[in-house]
């Protein structure tokens, strides 16, 4: 690899620019505030999550492939990294049905708080149409 490092040098800077652009992109997604909108029938938050996580994955791939030289490594990289990634994602997915979603009745008092907050928000909105901080 050392014979082509000049070539690689150029590449590193372009990778760097690509990463910066990606970062800018995710900030743009935040600024245009997708959360409140409902585009193509998708919940805004979900759409936002998909978009920014896709950008993050792209960035991660750039870093992995070029900065961490995975492009130049042998096949062991697959042996090591694919099970890791499967396990890492699998862990999250496997605990989602229990913690991310509640099969049984969720008794958290926060649900009551939320209800109360909605009520007061409705009340204050009726009184003065200013934006209130209550969620």
């Amino acid at each position, binding site marked *: 690899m050392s014979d082509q490092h000049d070539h690689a040098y150029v590449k590193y800077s372009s990778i760097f620019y690509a990463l910066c652009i990606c970062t800018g992109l995710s900030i743009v997604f935040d600024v245009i505030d997708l959360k409140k909108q409902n585009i193509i029938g998708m919940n805004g938050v979900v759409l936002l999550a998909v978009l920014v996580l896709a950008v993050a994955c792209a960035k991660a791939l750039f870093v992995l492939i070029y900065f961490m030289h995975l492009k130049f490594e042998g096949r062991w990289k697959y042996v090591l990294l694919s099970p890791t990634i499967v396990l890492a994602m699998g862990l999250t997915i496997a605990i989602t049905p229990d913690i991310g979603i*509640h099969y*049984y*009745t*969720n*008794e958290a008092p926060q649900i009551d708080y939320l209800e109360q907050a909605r009520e007061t928000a409705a009340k204050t909105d009726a009184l003065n149409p200013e934006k209130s901080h209550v969620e």
Partner: protein
Amino acid sequence: MGKGWCLFFLFWPVAAVVSCAAAPLIGWSFPYDNAQAASNLGIRIDNLFYLILAITAAVFIGTQAVLVYALWHGANNRDERAHHTHGNHKLELIWSVIPGAILLFLAIYQMNLWADFRFKNHYPEAAVKAPLAEVTARQFEWRFRYPAIGKKLQPKPQPDDLYTVNELHVPFGRPVLIQLRSEDVQHSFFLPALRIKQDALPGLQIPVWFEANKPGVYDLVCAELCGWGHYKMKAHVIVEPEEEYQAYLKNLTQQQFYDGLGNIAANENGSESEAAEK
């Protein structure tokens, strides 16, 4: 020398099998009343248990017999050298496929039972419509909250609810549902007689249904470590005919809302402390 050891290794599985076979006769089996579960679901669980027991007993006897036989031969092997082999694909295949099939069968066979027990859409409708009581576990006692007679159990305590501690009355012959919750740490609602166990998880309200088919007084214990007094969360579930159960509720209402003047103040707030019997 070797033969002695073979006998030693023969002795122990024989002892194990004999004690298992004798167990039901000398009462080392499921608790209460001839080891019979007091609910239909429990009986189904027992049957599954016996099925697995039969399979595992066969496997156990088989493996131990072959082991001892192989040892016996190995001890007496007069050849200069052992038999040289690195394995046998056909054999490997056979002894992967057969146990695999048995295990897969077991896995599929029990799915229905599990679904009936825990899947909410399999719960008996009658029970879901009118939950019997709310069971609150706390360090170190069980608290029960029944709705007032003729009313429905509400998620939040109502002024006319009935309360008891460490004694749950249940009618038999119809499926009932309790809402299980915990006030502090994790506990587990364990009714050995009915083969029911469900953890009470802080932050969740878990519906548990069961149908007792025999009247009696059964122990209710806690099966999840909940502190130093874990062992003494002693309570009883009293399974009785419907009329007795209704009478009990009436009696409870009277006790709880007796205002000291001979009146039943059914709609005033029934304080918990008054209801606490112990």
